[in-house]
């Protein structure tokens, strides 16, 4: 790694030479990637390309065997745990929508708010006007205002995806990692989600992992294709989808 590389200082997320292996299986192999502040990036790649593992590394769930992972140009993420990384301002949506099913939608968002997260703070918490306004705003954005008191478990799959994105919004991070946001959605919902992400991108940096090429095309952002834990191609969606190696990987050998 070259510290004088200008990107080190400017990139909000910077990965260089990252390796991870599980019991001899190389999940991530010399992966290097950089995200500029305010950018939206789509990550594509076949199953097992290492997309989710990459997110695990960024969010501190998995520790890389070697390599550099920097946030905001200077913070070394490999030394921090999930909680600390979340506090720094990285939010993550899981591949499988993960919301608190036995609690109301409101409460889901309430828990996501980036307010006092200490034991004492939550034990003696009293709602404030500011908090409920923020929740209202998020509910508005994710279009779940009418069902705010319903249990999250009773939502449809697509609604759960939105709720989870809503939780990311309530968390108010600088960087959003969104894993397969439109899986199981109807075309209309997919379109709405794309709009939603574009809206979010106005303020925040976003990294989207997705299989759905229509969706990726609709986002219209720079695309990185991963394969076997390393970057195969990078560029506009048209560049990438016409790349011979990408086609080979997707269509099989």
């Amino acid at each position: 790694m070259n510290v004088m590389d200008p990107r080190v200082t400017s990139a909000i997320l910077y990965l260089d030479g990252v390796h991870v292996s599980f019991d001899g299986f190389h999940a991530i192999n010399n992966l290097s990637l950089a995200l500029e502040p305010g950018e939206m990036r789509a990550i594509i790649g076949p199953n097992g390309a290492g997309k989710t593992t990459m997110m695990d590394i960024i969010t501190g769930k998995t520790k890389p065997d070697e390599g550099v992972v920097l946030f905001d140009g200077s913070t070394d993420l490999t030394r921090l745990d999930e909680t600390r990384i979340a506090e720094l301002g990285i939010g993550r949506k899981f591949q499988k929508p993960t919301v608190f099913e036995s609690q109301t939608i409101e409460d889901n968002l309430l828990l996501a708010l980036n307010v006092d997260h200490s034991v004492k703070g939550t034990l003696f918490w009293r709602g404030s006007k500011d908090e409920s306004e923020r929740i209202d705003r998020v509910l508005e954005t994710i279009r779940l205002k009418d069902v705010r008191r319903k249990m999250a478990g009773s939502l449809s799959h697509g609604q759960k995806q939105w709720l989870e994105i809503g939780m990311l919004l309530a968390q108010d991070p600088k960087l959003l990692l969104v894993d397969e946001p439109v899986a199981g959605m109807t075309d209309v919902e997919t379109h709405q989600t794309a709009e939603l992400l574009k809206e979010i991108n106005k303020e925040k940096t976003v990294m989207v992992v997705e299989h759905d090429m229509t969706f990726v095309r609709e986002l219209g952002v720079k695309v990185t294709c991963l394969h076997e834990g390393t970057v195969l191609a990078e560029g506009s969606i048209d560049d990438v989808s016409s790349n011979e190696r990408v086609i080979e990987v997707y269509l099989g050998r």
Partner: protein
Amino acid sequence: MQHILTRSLDRAATTFILVVAGLGILISLSNILLPAGSFFQVPTYLVALFGKYVCYAILALSIDLIWGYCGILSLGHGAFFALGGYAMGMYLMRQIGSRGVYGNPILPDFMVFLNYPKLPWYWHGFDMFWFAALMVLLVPGLLAFCFGWLAFRSRVTGVYLSIITQAMTYALLLAFFRNDFGFGGNNGLTDFKDILGFNVQADGTRVALFLLSCFSLILAFLICRAVVTSKLGKLLIAIRDAESRTRFLGYRVESYKLFVFTLSACMAGVAGALYVPQVGIINPSEFAPGNSIEAVIWVAVGGRGTLTGAALGAVVVNYAKTYFTSGPLAPYWLFMLGALFILVTLLLPKGIVGTFNAWWEPWKAQRISDADESAAREDGIEPKPNPAE
């Protein structure tokens, strides 16, 4: 503080408190005021028996708090109960003074015949009630804190956690069995005389202890309610249902688990401390892993994730045990108890109160307007089966 009380005391919670307080007072008055042998008089042995049930109910609450709400299945909670009991037992032993069979003013009897030259250092201070009372909270609390600090920080979860809690209580069982350990070995501590100057066997003391247990149950219940109705309570459920989600939201999960685990251990300790003077003995068998498992079963029978259910489960199962171990059914009582456990799991997976709520709520929801929605959820949120466990 007001807002904590308001949100803790919904209709169901208030009913629970009133029932416990009412029963407590009624039983006590009936025992004291009515003539012995009259039909409505509750004999003293029943008062002691109910006192025991109430202590078990507190233990069940403490387990429900961590298991029902936070998904931590401790198969070693009996250890905290027993440690609290031992702290109280040590106080009661010291109160015997020179009335022991050997008449030694300092050393308890078992130390005299095992030739202890002097009181071991860890027995000092237990002649003072305040110190013993402090230890009742501190010893289980500290053990839970150390244990939890290690386990939660290392992210030991699910069945691994359950098994090492079992290892913990099993190790303590073996340790307390050892006579060299200085706690009376297998015989434990017994033959108590006084508590705070009152004869432990006097009817008045028994009634007072029973009332104190009821009061402690109400207090424990209120504390649990305060916790589970707070934002922290929502978070505990969140941790139970999706632990890593809470972590990625920026919560330090281990702190929350540690807090609630320690709190729960302290409650279990208090339950043990109240239990000992009422049953008159504390010995290592309280550490037996089977006891802890059984306590978890009370909670499951009553309804996991419902505080009233936990307390009710403890009373129901123990009443069944009392009932079945006497009379012509005595040789077969294990069949009945075993069958009860199997049938409850198969037919009432949510436990008694959970099932009742599921059946009652839709009907009630019609009557209650949306304005009062928070009450409609009773005090329970049905636990979702957690595959991680």
